[in-house]
């Protein structure tokens, strides 16, 4: 009798353990964790508090971890991780060649069949599509727009209106400088990219006429030494007089702080700066698009495809990863993303309502002006020397006065000629 009880108990216990094992096994099979590689470490709280919870709520059983790296180290770190097979499931894609190279190496999977990809037009896809236009390998997330953000209180106090033309722009700068309360413009050359991206690529499209000039440059019909491409450097050179003391040693965060603290009147901006200024600036802000040469000229803005999300081809959780990408392609994601990160504008054709006034202003320029992407990103930065990196140095040099605009343009064109042969 006693023995029987024991045996029954043992059996029961075994069954219980086995059952528990089965149950925990099935639970762990369901609980998938996806890791996102990204360079947007500024966005960590938004991903953790808003985007990921929204996805996890709709998709129980999938956990998502956002694991960003510092922006300047991202490409190098990501390449090493992918080669070593330790990269996350979802890869945030830089536009154009950096990601194209990853796709060619087989690190990124094609996303043509992801549901919702039909919401993206060809311009939106251009940053992450093969040269033949057939395969897209990242789901476009957002673009950024360049322009100028200004301190409205300062403008009101000095009686300055939003400048529309180049002359008005420099007149406004002169007025701010003469008054002396504010540093006319917050930009430094220490980080180099700031001068190139916020300076050259910001005002440039007005001079090379946006897409027309950019495509002509790629086709070899125009050269960087042409007047249309040198003129932005000449204008940039004039900026030096209006930058703060010691701008040569002023880094990007310094410029942001100068403006946010109300010490500078105008800030050459990328729309991604909006959320930071919303948090920190205690004055009213406004924005204007890059001033045109003469009143009545068509305005061009840089509306640059900037960020997308792709799938690590070697992910262990392809189904869950695909599910996440489908959600990224949905209008729901676009709305959450565009509103929690004002300044990153959705590339989806689906209408997205924005709440932030400055972001609305920026995106409104899409109606008034012609849009283009940064001139150096597509095709032209494929070789060595790399045109984008060279442009950084050139823009900083021109402002610092260590190269004239003409010398800089000539050096860039020579570097480009050394490896790039446009298709005739």
């Amino acid at each position: 009798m006693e023995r029987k009880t024991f045996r029954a108990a043992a059996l029961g216990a075994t069954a219980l353990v086995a059952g528990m094992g089965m149950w925990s096994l099935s639970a762990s099979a369901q609980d998938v964790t996806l890791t996102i590689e990204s360079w947007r470490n500024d966005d960590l709280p938004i991903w953790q508090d808003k985007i990921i919870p929204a996805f996890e709520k709709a998709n129980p059983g999938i956990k998502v971890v956002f694991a960003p790296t510092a922006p300047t180290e991202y490409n190098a770190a990501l390449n090493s991780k992918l080669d070593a097979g330790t990269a996350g499931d979802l890869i945030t894609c830089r536009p154009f060649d950096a990601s194209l190279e990853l796709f060619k190496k087989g690190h990124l999977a094609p996303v043509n069949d992801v549901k919702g990809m039909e919401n993206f037009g060809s311009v939106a896809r251009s940053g992450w599509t093969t040269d033949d236009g057939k395969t897209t390998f990242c789901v476009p997330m957002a673009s950024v727009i360049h322009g100028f953000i200004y301190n409205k209180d300062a403008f009101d106090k000095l009686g300055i209106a939003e400048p529309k033309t180049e002359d008005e722009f420099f007149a406004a700068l002169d007025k701010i400088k003469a008054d002396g309360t504010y540093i006319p413009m917050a930009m430094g050359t220490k980080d180099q990219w700031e001068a190139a991206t916020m300076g050259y690529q910001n005002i440039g499209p007005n001079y090379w006429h946006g897409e027309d000039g950019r495509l002509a440059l790629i086709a070899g019909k125009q050269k960087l030494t042409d007047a249309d491409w040198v003129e932005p450097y000449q204008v940039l050179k004039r900026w030096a007089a209006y930058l703060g003391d010691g701008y040569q040693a002023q880094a990007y965060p310094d410029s942001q702080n100068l403006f946010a603290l109300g010490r500078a009147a105008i800030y050459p901006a990328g729309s991604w700066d909006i959320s930071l200024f919303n948090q920190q600036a205690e004055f009213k802000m406004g924005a204007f698009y890059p001033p045109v040469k003469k009143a009545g000229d068509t305005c061009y803005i840089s509306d640059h495809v900037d960020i997308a999300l792709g799938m690590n081809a070697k992910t262990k959780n392809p189904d869950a990863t695909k599910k996440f990408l489908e959600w990224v392609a949905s209008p729901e994601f676009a709305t959450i993303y565009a509103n929690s990160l004002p300044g990153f504008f959705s590339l989806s054709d689906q209408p997205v309502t924005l709440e932030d006034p400055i972001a609305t202003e920026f995106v409104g320029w899409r109606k008034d002006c012609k849009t283009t992407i940064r001139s150096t990103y597509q095709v032209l930065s494929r070789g060595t020397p790399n045109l984008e990196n060279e442009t950084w140095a050139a823009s900083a040099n021109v402002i610092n006065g260590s190269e004239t605009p003409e010398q800089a343009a000539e050096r860039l064109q020579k570097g480009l000629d050394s490896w790039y042969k446009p298709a005739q």
Partner: protein
Amino acid sequence: MARSSLDKMMSVTLQHSQSVTDLAAPIRRPWRWHIVVFLAPALIVYSALMIIPIFETLRLSLFTSKEQVVSFVGFGNFETLFGDERWSKSFWNALWNNTYFFLIHMLVQNPIGICLAALLSVPRLRGRSFYRTAFFMPTMLSFVIVGFVWKLILSPLWGVAPSILAAIGLKWLFGPWLGQEATALTALSLISVWQYVGVPMMLIYAALLSIPDEVIEAAECDGVVGFAQFWKIKLPLVLPAIGLVSILTFVGNFNAFDLIYVSQGALAGPNFSTDILGTFLYRTFFGYQLQLGDPHMGATIATVMFFIILAVVAFYLLVIQRRMRRYQF
């Protein structure tokens, strides 16, 4: 007296080859397993962590990859590095900057280190251990902290340097030093000197302490005191330590990377004026922004760096160190 590690290594190999010839002799001796067993851990760890990676780097520099196909090019990468106008310009620029970086250390860091060591070894000095710790403190700080702190101190916007200079009426001296081509490398070299001055100080201080009292007393009997004593007695006795410090400085400087990367970024601005071999290697090997990394050209630069350092260290050990007079007490 400090003996270089190479000397030790050479004496070890000598003993080893000695034992091999012994084995060849007809005298029967059991195979001495313990030698192999004792050598193995160091040999295995050193090979895995140093020798194999070095040879891998050398091998990598002989190949190139195009469209994901790796092919053997012999010394083609070296031809590109020295022959191509752009590559060679970047390379010589980095090499010259690196030499300048080293010269500043030799001219500023090591003399200051010797002076501090000499002052610390004055017998009647009060608070010696405090000074010793204080001077050595920056060496123990992370280069990230050093780079960041100095960037803040020298910032024309928020830094204390402009206001301190203004307070003593020297505001006109101030400039955005880290942002000007003419001054950036000097400024960074001096920051590095500030950080590492503790190392030569400690090594030379130790050498000064090891001078026997008899020698000093004998000098005093002969009337050699004060500065004369330092120049004529102490300095010649610590010369081997100074030689060691110089070679350590050289190796350290030609492998430097961290401070420049932290304070100027991988593009080593303004206009590559602070680009040294380490940042040039990093940019080439890992890529930067839109520039994709090229491991083969990177390995080529690493190989050239390796041979530069090897050549100078070998020259020092084989030519200079052998001629240096050593005193046995």
